């Protein structure tokens, strides 16, 4: 991809960054949900005596 003016370059990189930011939000949500899913399972488990 060629850029003739700085504005073209900034438009391209900024667009990519906005797409990445969207992916990061979903990624963080997924990571947190994965890490904490067992916590909920432990809390739900009935106590054995």
């Amino acid at each position: 991809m060629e850029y003739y003016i700085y504005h073209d370059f900034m438009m391209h990189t900024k667009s990519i960054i906005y797409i990445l930011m969207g992916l990061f939000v979903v990624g963080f949500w997924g990571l947190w949900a994965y890490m904490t899913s067992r916590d909920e399972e432990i809390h739900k488990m009935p106590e054995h005596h």
Partner: protein
Amino acid sequence: MSTENNKSLMTPANIITGIILLVGLIITVLRFTKGLGTVTNLDQNNPWGIWIGFDLLCGVALAAGGYTTSSACYIFGLKRYHSAVRPAILTAFLGYALVVFALHYDVGRPYRLVYPLFVQPGTTSLLFEVGLCVFLYVTVLAIEFSPAMFEWLGMKTLRNKIHKLTLALTVFGVVLSTLHQSSLGALYIAVPSKLHPLWYSPYLAILFFVSSIPAGLSMVIFEGTLAHKPFHHMMDKTHLDEHEGVILGFARGASIALAAYFCVKLVALAADNNWHYLATGWGAWYLVEVLGFVALPSLLYAIGSREKNIKLIKWTAALTVFGIILNRFNVSMVAFNYNLPADQRYFPSLMEIGISIFVVTLGVTIYRFIVSRMPIFFEHPEYKDAH
């Protein structure tokens, strides 16, 4: 009694330590009497070598456990990590003190250490900002650590007075750490033509600061793992009971922090549109660093935290510590001056590596001395429930 003491001192570890310290002292004498050229491979193209790349950049990053642990405990109120605060503060204090110590080898003339701050302050230089922050933060860490020393010495009044400053010191420490962790990265913003585009970024300051958080958290886990066996007899019940919880909690924090660091790395890549470099040899090395030592540990920490797999977390902490060292090496040495011919590239001399090993050994020796005497892994009986 003295024979017993002499016998106990002659352990293989102590003998190796003694040899390293002796060799280090000899190189130190050579450095300060014959000059930099005698002991280093530094030249006009490569004025900063392993003493900056390892002793300073890695030393500061890995000492970040001090501000991360104390802010978790005192600012965010996570008191369940309290037992990890003193070991983390001690590691940070020793780390920073040794950074200042090691800097003398590069700068020379130790008696002129005060010049940049008090005699001829170069207030427009980034190095002035780094120097000022390190000077202030070492002072803050010394004060933060001092209650342990005063408890050991039985100086109750002074200990209680300083203990009241804990929150203020923690806030001050976080501010100073944020400033100088990032300014160390900002130093390399001044060399856009020397540093490979994959490592050079206008976001270097942010990258250095964000990476210091998982570095500090991982170092607390790593150091705790190493200290657990030899100093088990010094640890009280609270410390031993909280140990697993500290590891699991810090693993979760490190996983998120590494994921954030990975995101900033990608943003830095996208902002300069450097994607095409990924298809080169340098790109392969960059991917090894970013995927193998940032994304992978983040994932492994998440798995370890979810499965409560302490062993996996401990190995991941070692991987992360190695990854941070690799990143600082890449920025300061490997990808630095990448466009020079191979024969003009820098590789540290044996004596430079010797000094770095000497500095680390000195740190471990002082750590052992302090931990086996002062209340670091246990609460002093006279101050129980005083926190």
